[in-house]
């Protein structure tokens, strides 16, 4: 089967013995006309271009971070596209340097703690609001939806956290954006869709709401839990603005995103690397400053790219079935 056939479906789906296939589960319907050559070619070109637009930059960044200084010089000091001399120097250097190692630890800590808090609060709230005609659920729901329509703005939010002494505190990176009303509404949609009979049966067996949530509702809604965990985790992993607001000066507390911003995006010299010109004291192979920058980019990229394929199949389900219901 050629690549073009894979994209557009085989022209002739009949088996070789000439029998008519019993079931056409996928593929072109009988009444559908065959695509024109131009159409097939155009569609293939567009979709290939779209995929390459996403993947090529990532490929170049990753390759450059593994490239030796010579390879980067030969590429004119910009991204390397063709592999030409590989080296782990950049990674050795950033991991022997306190700033990035600490940032990785901080990023993971914020991501784990934040996701745990957000998911706990969101699951509880979503279940609490999902039972029909419970006392006060309309009021709580309204209180949540109002925040989707109107917000006090950046400054009052900052002032509130400051007055609560959140400056330079890690909780200021987690709690202010800790719950997403949108996520809760989606989860609530899923919990509402849990079969009522199952819940009633559990209740007859003596289960309370906590038990029902834990043993009935959560096991039947794993897809949405997975997707929401990813959403929150990705948010915390990339947290940048809250760092800018609440701890912009103490670089020992910075997560990876902020390190990326400061040392790569703004181009501030990273303390203790050869970017700072202190390369003479470094014993191992000196990595190119550019490779070091790209290695930081790759570090922020990798956890997402690693976790992502496992959760990707849930996206459509997780986003759609839980459409907002009043």
């Amino acid at each position, binding site marked *: 089967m050629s690549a073009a056939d894979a994209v557009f*479906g085989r022209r002739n789906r009949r088996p070789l013995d000439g029998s008519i296939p019993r079931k056409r589960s996928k593929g072109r319907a009988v009444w559908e006309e065959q695509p024109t050559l131009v159409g097939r070619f155009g*569609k293939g070109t567009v979709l290939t271009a779209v995929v390459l637009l996403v993947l090529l930059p990532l490929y170049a960044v990753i390759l450059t971070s593994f490239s030796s200084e010579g390879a980067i010089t030969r590429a004119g000091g910009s991204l390397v596209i063709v592999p030409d001399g590989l080296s782990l120097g950049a990674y050795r250097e950033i991991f022997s340097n306190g700033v990035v190692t600490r940032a990785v630890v901080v990023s993971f800590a914020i991501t784990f703690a934040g996701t745990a808090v957000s998911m706990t609060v969101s699951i509880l*709230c979503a279940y609490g609001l999902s039972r029909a005609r419970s006392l006060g659920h309309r009021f709580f729901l309204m209180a949540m939806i109002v925040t989707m329509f109107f917000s006090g703005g950046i400054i009052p939010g900052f002032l509130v956290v400051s007055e609560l002494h959140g400056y330079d505190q890690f909780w200021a990176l987690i709690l202010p954006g800790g719950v997403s009303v949108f996520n809760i509404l989606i989860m609530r949609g899923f919990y509402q869709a849990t079969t009522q009979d199952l819940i*009633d049966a559990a209740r007859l067996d003596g289960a309370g709401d906590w038990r029902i949530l834990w043993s009935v509702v959560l096991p039947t809604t794993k897809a949405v839990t997975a997707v929401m965990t990813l959403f929150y985790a990705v948010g915390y992993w990339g947290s940048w603005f809250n760092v800018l607001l609440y701890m912009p000066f103490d670089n020992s507390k910075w997560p990876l995103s902020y390190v990326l911003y400061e040392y790569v995006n703004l181009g501030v010299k990273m303390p203790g690397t050869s970017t700072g010109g202190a390369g003479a004291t470094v014993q191992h192979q000196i990595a190119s400053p550019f490779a070091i920058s790209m290695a930081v980019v790759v570090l922020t990229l990798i956890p997402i790219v690693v976790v992502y394929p496992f959760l990707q199949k849930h996206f459509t389900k997780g986003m759609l079935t839980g459409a907002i219901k009043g």
Partner: protein
Amino acid sequence: MAVVTTGDAAVPEEAGPLAPPGAARIRRLRPSRRGPQPRLSWRIRLRRDRSLIIMVLPAMLLLLVFNYLPMFGTVSAFEYYDPIYGFLHSNFIGLQNFTDLFRDQLFWQAFQNTLVLSFVQLVLYFPIPIILAILLNTVLSSKLRSFIQAVVYLPHFFSWVLVVTIFDQMLGGAGLLNEFLRQHDMSTWNIMTSGSAFKYLVTAQAVWKEGGWGIIVFLAALAAIDPALYEAAAADGAGRWRRMWHITLPGMRGMIVLMLVLRLGNALNVGFEQMLIQRYAVGPQHAEVLDTFAYYYGIGNGNFGYGAAAGLFKGVISLVMIFAANRLAHAIGEDGLYRK
């Protein structure tokens, strides 16, 4: 079991001496969504639902502190806010911040930038997920389809810092594009610092990051279209393009309108982090939007009341726009964000 699901409060009394062991609990059952409306006093409901209310409280507490307190904190827009005195004891100056704001040339510049960026994104960004979804929907191999989906969704999960850094490596002064131009003896063009190209640059970034993710809702709308419609149309002689015009697009209409309403309601939110990160490279005359204005003048310059006033102005206009956009949706017979 039918008794159980209707959940009438009177059931336990009628159950009599032969009631099953769980009968005492039936009283506590909440009704399913269908069925007669029970009339219970709030005390009974409170006892029945107390664990539900406890579950909701942590989220409510967070919203109260970090969403509702700031709403009341907008009072600082009417104050000469001083961190030492806080919200309650700062000097109340009435509308002074607003009159200053409306006389500020830079504020109107930021307002104009916001509208221009929003408009460019509406025109150039909005159709892309729709086209991509229709295109992807015609790919027959489901393996290939899910591969393409996986690839185009990916950038949605990158932070703005990451996206801007990647764009810088592609289009910036030391980036791939300019390296290519240099090697071929052409004049270089640093797009990342170009003021005139900025609105297209940020749109391109938005497309790269969110354009793929945006197709998810449209794919769902496409999946909901009854295939029999296509077959019937084909039987009546409708070609590929006619089917798209008369079946596919009307089938997506509701979702397109909903997304348009969301986009219009959010017209003043144009990638705050995205602008903030690039404001320095491009310069405020091009990259200053209402949010970054509020941030710089409020927190950067320490003029909190002034920044809060700019933020409140934006919040109120946004609210009006959300309702207006929904009105528009209702006027053309769609639901929009909420029903009429």
